[in-house]
């Protein structure tokens, strides 16, 4: 059994329509789920839309959860699927400008900043994080997704296999290809060959 007895009880109560138990279930993973969604879209509004949609899907689908994976992994799978679906639909409208604001030709800025940084440190950090995110956006969605899950969110290969519903061998080859491509974009000035 991949879920704890406590989780099983909460899931059962949530299935019966208990709002507070459902909330207790999702609270345990909403922080990471939001962080994940944010990295798909790089803006809080879309991330919250995706998260809300994901959680409602989870509520509707509780009856189909068999406990074959952990509840959290199941949640992240639904979040990943929802983000991908939304991103595909919005792809035409999502441009680099909306993800990474460019102040100048070679300058990139990022919305999230650490307030404790000094001006110089902040500027360096802005440029660095802006550039790596810019490069990440140049990857195909499938490769960007696996970099987000592995290198930003830190999921294990096994978890990624469950979240994306692919076999571990595919995870390995996809990570390898995505990192090779990202390096190519990174050293190539932010543009794919």
């Amino acid at each position, binding site marked *: 059994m991949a879920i704890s007895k406590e989780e099983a009880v909460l899931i059962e109560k949530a299935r019966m*329509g208990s*709002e*507070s138990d*459902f*909330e207790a279930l999702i609270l345990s993973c*909403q*922080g990471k789920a*939001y*962080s994940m969604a*944010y*990295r798909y879209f790089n803006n*809080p*509004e879309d*991330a*919250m*839309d995706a*998260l*809300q*949609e994901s*959680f*409602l*899907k989870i*509520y*509707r*689908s509780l009856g189909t959860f068999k406990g074959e994976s952990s509840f959290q992994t199941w949640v992240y799978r639904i979040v990943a699927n929802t983000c991908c*679906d*939304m991103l595909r*639909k919005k792809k035409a409208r999502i441009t680099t400008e909306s993800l990474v604001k460019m102040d100048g030709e070679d300058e990139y800025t*990022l919305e*999230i*900043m*650490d307030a404790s940084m000094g001006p110089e440190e902040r500027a360096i950090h802005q440029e*660095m*994080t802006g550039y*790596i*995110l810019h*490069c*990440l956006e140049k990857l195909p969605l499938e490769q960007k997704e696996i*970099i987000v899950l592995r*290198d*930003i969110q830190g999921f294990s*290969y096994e978890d990624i296999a469950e979240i994306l519903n692919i076999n571990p061998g595919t995870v*390995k080859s996809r*990570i*390898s*290809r995505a*990192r*090779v491509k*990202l*390096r190519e974009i*990174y*050293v190539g000035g932010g543009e794919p060959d």
Partner: protein
Amino acid sequence: MECRKIQEQLALYRDEILDKAELENIRTHLASCDECQLYLDQLNKISAELTALPEPQIPAEFLPVFRHALREEMRSDHNETMENDKNPVRPLFSGGWKKWSMVAAVFVVGIISIYGLQQNGDMLNPAGFPEDSTILSMEEEPEKHQEETGAPQSRAEGMVKDTEGVPVEGFEEQPGDVMAIAGMENEPEDWDGVKGTPEEENYYLEVLKRQDGRDFTIENSFKDEEGVWHFLVQYDEEALYYEGKDGELWISESLQ
């Protein structure tokens, strides 16, 4: 050719998933290939930058809005929701997050509503709450009030004055009484008691209308299972999130 194969493996090098033979082969190759060593350094630099990306924090407005969406979902027909599950779900608050996000950023409390009239010239304290409380009370326990203060049980039985000395309709002035309503000093004439009961939404909306005279719109409101009313109130220059129960209305601490 060998470099290309090595570089593909280098992309997985730090994950420690390669077998011993592969690792040994890579180490031997790196010792004699500057190009692949540079390649590995670049991969490590990219990895470090990705790891160092700031962790986004979930905005405070997410949970109350999601709760509302969930309740709407719970109310809907179960069979219909199962059918909808086959289709993409339309976010119930899509595009409205910016307004909600204002709530989390605003903590200006300029609102004090005072009802309990105390004798001996003491400054009024709303329903006995601490002086710095943000609670807005439109209810009072009349018997207790009279017992403690000698003031009329009903607001309608007496007449009090505002801080400018203008009689306030529906209240009777008592010796030493001072009425101070922040932001309402010049418009107490309409103060004639709140209609409805503390269980009803309109009750709290009327409290809100009276608190400081500002125009506002209700962006969202709902009553939770514990009987607490939730209101997202949009003013011209800010938005505030209130909760209300048992006749009391307060700025929600959950967003502070």
